[in-house]
Structures are given as C-alpha cells and as structure tokens.
C-alpha cells in the first residue's frame, strides 16, 4: 500500500480532483458501454414477443 490513510488516498497529493474525475468519468463510460447493449437486447426480445403475440391473435 502506497498511502498511509484513506483520506490520503482520496487526496492523491493535491491531485485528487484530477485522478478521481478521470477514473469516475471513464468508469461511467465503461458501465454505459455494458448497460446500453444489454438494454437494446432486452428491448429487441420484448418487441419480438409483442410482434409474435400480435401475429398469433390474427
């Protein structure tokens, strides 16, 4: 461990704002890249299910 305390870890030697904003925004973008395709997949299945139900009724 390179830091003596957790607050020191958060401070990053005066560079906390830069380090944490870089990691935070990047992490958010990575999560977005996972969540959006998963949602698109669910949406596709939902639409297909609706289409199949509609066709079955006719």
């Amino acid at each position, binding site marked *: 461990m390179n830091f003596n305390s957790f607050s020191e*870890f958060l401070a990053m030697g005066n560079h906390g704002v830069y380090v944490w904003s870089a*990691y935070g925004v990047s992490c958010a973008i990575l999560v*977005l890249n996972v969540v959006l*395709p998963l949602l698109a997949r669910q949406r596709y299945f939902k639409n297909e299910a609706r289409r199949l139900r509609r066709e079955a009724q006719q």
Partner: protein
Amino acid sequence: MNWTWFHKLGSPKWFYEISGRWLPWISISAAVLMLVGGVLGLAYAPPDYQQGNSFRIIYIHVPAALLAQSTYISLAVAGIVGLVWKMKIADIALQQAAPIGAWMTVIALFTGAVWGKPTWGAWWVWDARLTAMLILLFLYFGIIALGHAITNRDSAAKACAILAIVGVVNIPIIKYSVDWWNTLHQPATFTLTEKPAMPVEMWLPLLIMTIGFYCFFAAVLLMRMRTEVLRRESRTRWAQAEVARQIGRKA
C-alpha cells in the same frame, strides 16, 4: 492449411453459438483484470517522482488510447474481409465495434485533458498527437453516421468498409506523431523490444489494465454482435428458435 474455421466464422449461426460459450469467460476476465489493475494502479503503484499522483491516470489513459487505435485497425480489417469475401459477419463486426472505439477515444481524450491540466497547465493544446486523436474520433463518427444514413444494408456495408480502410492512414500518424513533430505529448513509454524503464509495481498494473481493456472490448463487441446477428437473421429458423427460447425464459 485448413480453412474450415474461416468459412464457419462467416456463418452467423456458428458465430452465435461459439460466442455464447466464450462471452461469460471473457466478461469475467475483463472485470477481474480491470479491478485488479485499477486497485494496483491507484493504491499500490509508487507515485511518479515528477508528476506525483496525477500519473495514475496513465492506467486508464494508455489502455483506452491503445484500444481506440486497435479498434480502428480492426474496423479496417473487417472492412477488407467484408469487401473481399462478402462475409456478413464482417459488416456486423464493423458496425458494432465502431461505437466502442468512439467511446474509447472519448475516454483517451478526456483522461488526457484531465491529466494535461496538472502536468502541462492546459486542458487542451493543438499538439500533433492530440489533434490526430481528435481526427480519429471524427472518423468514428463518420463511420457510425454513414452506417445509419444508408438504408440499403449492402451499400452501407460497402461505404463503411471503404471509409474504415481509407481512414486507417490516421493510425500511423497518431503513432509516429510524437516522433515526427515536436509535441508536448511525451513519446511512447513502452516498446515491445526494450525493458521498461519504470519499476515493476508501476508497469504491471498498466499491463493488467491493457489486457483488461482488450477483454472488455471483446466482451462488449460480442454482446452487441449477438443481438445484431439475431436481428439480421430474424427470417431464419435458428434465429426464430433462439428468440422464442429467450422470450420463454423471461416469461
């Protein structure tokens, strides 16, 4: 040489089956590697003697920038495969990889700006490396927009493949920009042929993060491609059976 695997790869059904088996393992590897690399880089690597702790941004900046360029090269390769062998899966790969590459370029540019402020005193400079990366982002936007603008799938595939191949000229410009011009951006920290000049606690997290980013790319790409394969193959029996199975599982 046995080329069956190559022809099989062109079959969407085979791709869907094999990628379904690989996806969990690649996803787990990506998550573990990025977590381990992040913790090692943030908490265990020693601070840089000049930059202090701001250098820790390297552990996302460099992997993202490398991946952004590799993704573009893979678009061009997919473009060539699609044009030469008329492989359907190549166009799907090209279309689905482009947004991931664009996001990686955004990460590289953003973390670069945040790193530049404490190091150079400026968020942005019109430096050769930075400008070439910005052009890469616009190339990604161009490919994504072109893919959406053309409704005929074959024409869209052809146009995107050509743009991807022409745009690849930007990749060596990015790579050698730091050698060709006097740039504020530092030259490559690592080369494949030489031993790294920094201690192992510093470069190991970077290596782990880089492999983690590539696994992340592979996992997200496969995930995106699988949905697109189902969509494009919706007239075939196997795709309809798979959709029915997925709907049944949810209901």
